[in-house]
């Protein structure tokens, strides 16, 4: 992928998220992530990417995480 191609993908995703609106944007991202997982087809790289993508929890988060157990 060239810099230009990366730039085009960046713009396309930005537009897709904008078109979906703030509430539905995360569904677009979740669908995209699943589609890319399938394309990548490499469990180790997928897991590494998920770890890299993590951000610290929002101070407004209200749910308790069911994932620590």
């Amino acid at each position, binding site marked *: 992928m060239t810099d230009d191609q990366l730039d085009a993908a960046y713009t396309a995703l930005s537009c897709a998220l904008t078109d979906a609106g703030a509430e539905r944007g995360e569904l677009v991202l979740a*669908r995209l992530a699943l589609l890319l997982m399938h394309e990548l087809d490499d469990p180790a790289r997928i897991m590494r990417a998920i770890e890299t993508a993590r951000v610290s929890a929002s101070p407004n988060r209200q749910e308790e995480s069911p994932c620590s157990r």
Partner: protein
Amino acid sequence: MLATYFDYRRHPVRLPRLDGGADAVRHRAAIVGGGPIGLSLALGLARYGVPSVVLEADDTVCTGSRAACISRRSLEIFAALGCEAPMLAKGLAWTGGRSYYRDTEVFRLSMPHDENQRFPPMINLQQCFAEQFLVDEAARYADLVDIRWQSKVTGVTPGADGARLAVETPGGTYSLDAGWVVACDGARSAVRQALGLKLEGTQYEGRYVIVDILLRSDYPTERRAWFDPPSNPGSTLLMHKQPDDIWRIDYQLRDDEDPDEAVKPENVLPRVASHLAMIGERQDWEPVWISMYKANALTLPSYRHGRVLFAGDAAHLVPIFGVRGMNSGIDDTHNLAWKLALVDRGLAPEALLDTYSDERVHATRENLRYATKSTEFMAPPSHGFALMREAVLSLAAEHAWVRPLVNPRQTSAIAFPDSALNAFAARSAAFEAGPRPGEVLPECPLERVDGMYGHVTDLLGPCFTALVFCPEGAVPADLQTALARLARGAVPFAAVAVASRRAPGATLPTAVDAGGRAARLFGAEGGAVYLVRPDGHVCARWRDGAAGEIEVALRRAVCASVPEMR
């Protein structure tokens, strides 16, 4: 007033002969709880000649469909207990299902099934029928199974060589001594509470309403699941057909709904009506039973506490999705019955019962692993799970690769690859096919020893079984000697030959595998010996060397002492 479809037989209280407020008889085994687990265990013990007393608080079998799906493994166990025929005759067999997202079908469930199978992967049967068939079967063992209705256990005093139970009945209270006590008294086990034991694990917040309705419909028996259906936006809904025109509907409540209000008919019936209208059911219908369900993933860390043992919901609570509740409890009893019988009869040390706990705690952890996945999809426990589910469901109609995530992961038999009762791993490694030590037997049709059409699992009796695959019909002399020696031993044992034809003068009873299908399935085309436990799990298998090692494997499988081994 709710409709009824089941003719409940009410059983009177029966007090035993008392001696100073105590049952005059000391019992070998007392089973607390006369549900499907307690009754299966009592029948299991009876197969080994061990009498038991079953203490059931109620005066009849359970109300409502409750555990409405019986798995293939449970049918195999019921067959060993001799009561699968009425279950199969009454139950509705099924092999698959459909999942819908909104109004679109996104997944087709297909459970493992082929022409080798003796039983369907699943039947739907209201729990009251299953319990009644077990009660009917127990009546055939009147000298071995003593069911005491309306007898509630309110206290347990453990001792070194047994336990004393406090029993409360409408006719008075008494105490009862037993050498072994098995708690099969369900999710709110009184025995568990009396011993101060706590379940460990996770309780989920999501609540489901379960409603049985009477509805005449020709729609076939399959599992249908709707995610976010137009009839009940935002909800998840399941539908199963049961005998006698009873349909089981389960739906999830929103987090903000008051559960006490939610189970009131005026709140349940409109949702059901809306759903039936959506799927095109136009017949009149009426509600039969309404209940509430909350998913739990909990277990005791150990199912043996001295002379007190735990089975079924008393030992573990598994989420409903994947139908591992009653089915795993029935598997518990099949594991426990032979072990408890051998220990009670002095044929095995008590350590054998620790393997019941080890193996079945392992099974629970496996069941919880699968059931938790199912639960997280059916009832997402957080925003992240809900979002990913929507992503999956919205892609599933177009993208086949994502559909396995929609699979409800139905129950299957759990293997014990690390069981202390397994032996000779290196011998097993030489096979290219067939069940490994710790796994249950795969099914395959063949001609039984009695010449009738049957299956591999028909060959197992209430004993250890050596399946001797001998393609040419001849059993080597040293193996014959070893098998004959085991057959003379105290531990129940039988050997069955599996051969392409019945050889004249054969020394072993022979099952005929004419086309060699069983031999291929067991990786035994060149001859092999499988040593199988009474519960159908393989202990060890040999292509060579069985004659010199099978006795060692059998001793190991009953925790007999090593020094006596050759």
